[in-house]
């Protein structure tokens, strides 16, 4: 294959050799370093052979010496192609321009992919990359990947690991988020205060308390208000007279669950205007080069009320070689507004759906529902949904301990 390409680039001829001393001609050619291939006999004293163009230019004396004749049958290769199309300048110029444009495009980032994010949205990270000189259309050599990884970790505390690399014209940012809710805060707590109490996070009635360290100040069944100390980290060491001799501090640790009452309230309007699709739709197609968009003309009147869906694709030569060329369509979907009045049953269904969503959100946060008491009433133009939800959940929260001076210590010194 490589030999064929080499022969095509050099250019070669298929010749018809005639004469009685054809064998001698071949020998002389090879003695002078000329390459000959595909020598096929065509009849008495006639054979066909292939020879490079540069060798053919020096072959005339050999023909004279051996009294043979050469006739050109075919010309093949790049030199002949270039000669044939020597007046057609635009085609090779366009070919070169396209190659140049591709080379130019290959030096920029035309596609950004974010992997591993679950809470941070793609848009947030892409906007951040644009602010940090690594957005769509940035020159690849201007992007400092290591600096980008560091700044991502620094500016988004929830990112615990970041990696970025460029493949072709694609910038890939892989991140790992810290999915533990209080992972970061507990670490900072430990750093700030060496000793912590457990306090009530919200108003509750204590259900159960299992203390591992610290002094429990409440027992099961006690009502507590938000901020009350549940387990103290301070232990008093008394002397024989019953006075405090010194304090012993050890961070409080306990499993405390409490009964919490959540108020629930919602207003569902009795009459709403609903947007409904009419089924009519108009579409325009577009092509976008380097941020300049060309759309097919709108040959229809705009709808009074509509929404728009854009669906586009990016042109790419390989999986990694994306180009700043987009093509796609924009659909305008007509809508109409309809007034609708809910009956009590419908309002109840909507209220039940919303309540279930609220309850499942609570359960996702580790709250177990014990009971619910929700009523629905029509008040004027609204359906009023109100009631309470009783739940059992961990109520302990860490808070730094107040360090107390031992009473009467100063006097003793005096």
């Amino acid at each position, binding site marked *: 294959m490589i030999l064929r390409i080499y022969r095509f680039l050099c250019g070669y001829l298929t010749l018809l050799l005639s004469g009685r001393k*054809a*064998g001698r001609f*071949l*020998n002389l*050619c*090879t*003695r002078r*370093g000329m*390459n*000959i*291939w*595909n*020598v*096929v*006999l065509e009849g008495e004293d006639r*054979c066909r052979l292939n020879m490079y163009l540069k060798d053919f230019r020096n072959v005339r004396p050999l023909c004279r010496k051996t009294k043979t004749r050469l006739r050109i049958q075919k010309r093949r290769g790049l030199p002949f192609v270039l000669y044939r199309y020597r007046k057609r300048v635009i085609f090779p110029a366009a070919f070169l321009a396209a190659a140049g444009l591709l080379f130019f495009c290959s030096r920029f980032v035309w596609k950004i992919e974010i992997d591993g994010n679950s809470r941070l949205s793609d848009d947030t990270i892409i906007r951040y990359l644009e602010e940090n000189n690594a957005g769509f259309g940035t020159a690849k050599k201007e992007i400092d990947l290591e600096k980008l990884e560091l700044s991502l970790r620094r500016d988004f505390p929830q990112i615990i690991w970041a990696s970025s690399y460029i493949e072709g014209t694609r910038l890939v940012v892989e991140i790992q988020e810290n999915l533990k809710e209080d992972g970061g805060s507990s670490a900072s707590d430990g750093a700030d205060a060496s000793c912590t109490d457990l306090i009530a996070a919200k108003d509750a009635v204590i259900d159960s308390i299992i203390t591992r360290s610290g002094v429990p100040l409440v027992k099961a069944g006690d009502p507590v208000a938000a901020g009350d100390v549940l387990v103290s980290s301070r232990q008093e060491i008394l002397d024989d007279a019953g006075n405090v001799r010194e304090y012993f501090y050890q961070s409080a640790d306990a499993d405390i669950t409490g009964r919490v009452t959540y108020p629930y309230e919602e207003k569902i309007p009795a009459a709403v205007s609903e947007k409904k699709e009419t089924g009519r739709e108009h579409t325009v197609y577009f092509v976008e080069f380097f941020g300049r968009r060309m759309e097919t003309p709108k040959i229809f009147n705009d709808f009074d009320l509509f929404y728009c869906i854009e669906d586009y694709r990016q042109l790419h030569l390989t999986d990694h070689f994306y180009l700043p060329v987009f093509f796609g369509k924009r659909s305008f979907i007509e809508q109409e507004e309809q007034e609708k009045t809910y009956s009590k049953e419908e309002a109840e269904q909507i209220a039940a759906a919303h309540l279930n969503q609220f309850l499942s959100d609570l359960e996702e946060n580790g709250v177990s529902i014990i009971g619910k008491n929700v009523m629905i009433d029509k008040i004027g133009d609204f359906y009023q949904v109100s009631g309470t939800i009783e739940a059992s959940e961990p109520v302990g929260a860490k808070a730094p301990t107040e360090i107390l001076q031992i009473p009467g210590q100063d006097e003793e010194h005096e």
Partner: protein
Amino acid sequence: MKNRRHVNREKIVNALELPKDLMLGTPCLTMNGNRELLIENHRGILTYSDRQMVVLAKDIRIEISGTGLYVEYYTADLMKIQGQMDGIAFRP
């Protein structure tokens, strides 16, 4: 006299374990079945037809007989012959 000199030279090449095709200029033939024949160290073609081909080498002539014989490529020291080969004979 010439033959004796050749024998001496061959003895030296054997004793020193040198490559014979380089030192003695003997032809080196490589065959793929009976359809392809590669000849190295040739000295040119003597006769050329599609039934018989005589290739010169140092001290010997190689006669190839067969049908549909043709030279696929032919350079100063390498030659590849293709076709249906029936026999190869070496003549002084």
